[in-house]
């Protein structure tokens, strides 16, 4: 098994607010292998975006990385000096944000925004940087790159803006691409194109992609492995097919069950309750309040347990079940 490209261990991020400390990310551990597409799925507020920001060390006050390690390509990111980290950002690890139009600077041409990345990260001269910009715009499927590169964000459609963002992210051939809700707000057909683009580029460049989304459909389509997050914690990690075929964690099962399917009688089963407040988070399992399988032992926080197939779950009920089944 190849060594992981990105290894996050016990990452915890807190936000200091007027009303107290919000534990946005709690002891999260994740691995991203070379060349794979990992999906991180969860409701809003589950801590997925914050985790991505933490990898790039972009968590700003009032947020704070309280503990954890993030190893990228063998290097510990959290202890790097700031300028070394700056060289990692955009060059080795890149991020694509949701709402592409607001993530582009409105007063600088899109071409310029890409070209300068070449200048900064690869020390290319003006003309060469511009040529590479045009190349990469073509690569992400933007027609007439020479014309588009001279335009501003407001002159491009949402889908095109997202392609530009992806171009920006891939400009310097990063090893890892973090995509935060890249298809939210896009037309279904455009979204599909974007996902195809991401998968294609990933395969071509050998980069790993972390796809953060709340949309299970996106995950099923595109990802090799999936991590499910709930209330700042990772509750299940598995290969996509295995996760959808046999989800183990009660939360995942509820999520999968709530996807409307064409071949079944549609029975909408919303998950009862709401995500617990991360302000006064319960010390035990954070899903306990909504879980049909809750028991006394759930007062204690469950640990991620991985089986031989690589399927990991953090749930007491599941562990007990397996133990019983083995006897």
């Amino acid at each position, binding site marked *: 098994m190849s060594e992981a490209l990105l290894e996050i261990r016990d990452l915890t991020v807190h936000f200091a607010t007027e009303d107290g400390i919000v534990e946005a990310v709690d002891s999260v551990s994740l691995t991203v292998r070379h060349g794979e597409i990992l999906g991180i799925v969860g409701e809003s507020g589950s801590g997925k975006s914050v985790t991505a920001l933490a990898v790039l060390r972009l968590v700003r006050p009032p947020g704070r990385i309280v503990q954890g390690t993030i190893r990228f390509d063998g290097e510990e990111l959290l202890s790097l000096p700031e300028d070394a980290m700056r060289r990692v950002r955009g060059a080795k690890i890149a991020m694509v944000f949701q709402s592409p139009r607001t993530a582009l600077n409105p*007063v600088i041409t899109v071409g310029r925004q890409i070209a300068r990345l070449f200048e900064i990260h690869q020390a290319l001269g003006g003309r060469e940087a511009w040529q590479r910009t045009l190349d990469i715009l073509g690569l992400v499927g933007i027609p007439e790159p020479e014309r588009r590169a001279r335009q501003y964000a407001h002159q491009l459609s949402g889908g095109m803006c997202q392609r530009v963002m992806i171009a920006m992210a891939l400009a310097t051939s990063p090893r890892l691409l973090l995509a935060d809700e890249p298809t939210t707000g896009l037309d279904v057909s455009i979204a599909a194109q974007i996902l195809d683009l991401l998968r294609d580029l990933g395969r071509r460049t050998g980069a790993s992609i972390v796809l953060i989304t709340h949309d299970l459909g996106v995950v099923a389509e595109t990802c090799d492995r999936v991590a499910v997050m709930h209330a700042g914690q990772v509750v299940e990690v598995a290969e996509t097919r295995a996760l959808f075929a046999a989800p183990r964690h009660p939360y995942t099962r509820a999520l999968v069950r709530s996807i409307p399917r064409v071949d079944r009688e549609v029975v909408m089963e919303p998950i009862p309750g709401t995500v617990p407040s991360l302000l006064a988070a319960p010390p035990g399992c954070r899903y306990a309040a909504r879980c049909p399988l809750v028991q006394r032992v759930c007062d204690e926080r469950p640990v991620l347990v991985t089986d031989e197939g690589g399927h990991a779950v953090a749930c007491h009920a599941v562990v007990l079940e397996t133990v019983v089944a083995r006897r």
Partner: protein
Amino acid sequence: MGFGRYLLHRLLLVVPTLVGVTLISFVLVYLLPGNPALVKAGALATPEVVQDIERQMGLHRPVHVQYWRYVTGLLRGDLGESSSTGRPVLEDFRQRVPATLELTLASLVVAALVGIPLGVLSAVHRDTLLDHGSRLLGVGGVAMPSFWTGLLLIYVGFYLLDLAPAPLGRIAADVPPPTRISGLYVVDAVVTGNLSALGSALHHLMLPALTLGFAVMAPLTRMVRATMLEILESDYVKAAWAAGLPRRRVVYGDALRNALIPVITLFGVIFGFLMAGNVVVELVFAWPGLGHYAVTSLVTKDPGPIQSFVVFVAVMYVFVNLVVDLLYGLADPRIRLR
């Protein structure tokens, strides 16, 4: 073409405002106590002479006719006469505008050179001593009447430190002003190479420009800071961080470029403050400009200058706002390229 329509639209909006302006200034002057014919004729004139002058000035005509004559007169450039100087108001204006212009420009320079960087740095180094200090200055500065600031500066600069000249005008009494090209002493002195005039003019410009500049700086700094803060929180700044752009570049490049555009509109507002402050500062420093002229006419109830001055100021204000809107439209690609 999007921008052309925007331009046209803005220009058209100006017309009703200008009409309203002339109406208001006419009404104001109409209400002025006293009989302008009497003032013109002099205290010793007989009633017949006064009546004659009244007919001459058209004061016996109905109100709307007087208004019409007023507006057509304005458009022709006939701004009436000043009863105190005895000269056409247009003449007086021409003589005094450069003085006010020079003071206004100098104050703008002071305000912008100090205020904008202060606002930017305040936003970038939020909640530090610098930030709190500049915010204090801002809040305090807005509360200080400009006549007071000027007088205090005179006390400290002239009386205590002997750094500034006595507040008696634009240039020392024994230094002849430079040959008049633009009317702005500093510009003319530079152009004609007149060093002594340049020195004296700058020396006299110092305190009044500081006073007025300070009065205007406070709101400017506040607004710049607010704009910059908002932009530093925006998505594209976060994306720029994530792309690995060096900090300096993100803040002083990307963010600042966006922040400076709304600052252009600020100048329209600032101009209003400047016009108000001008009057007072010119009085305190015996600066022979329009503001001084206006105050004197108002106090002596001299109708000619007043009605023209009021219109002039309003027109300038409208014009400046128009220019500001146009500049903004040009600077912001979102408007320029609809």
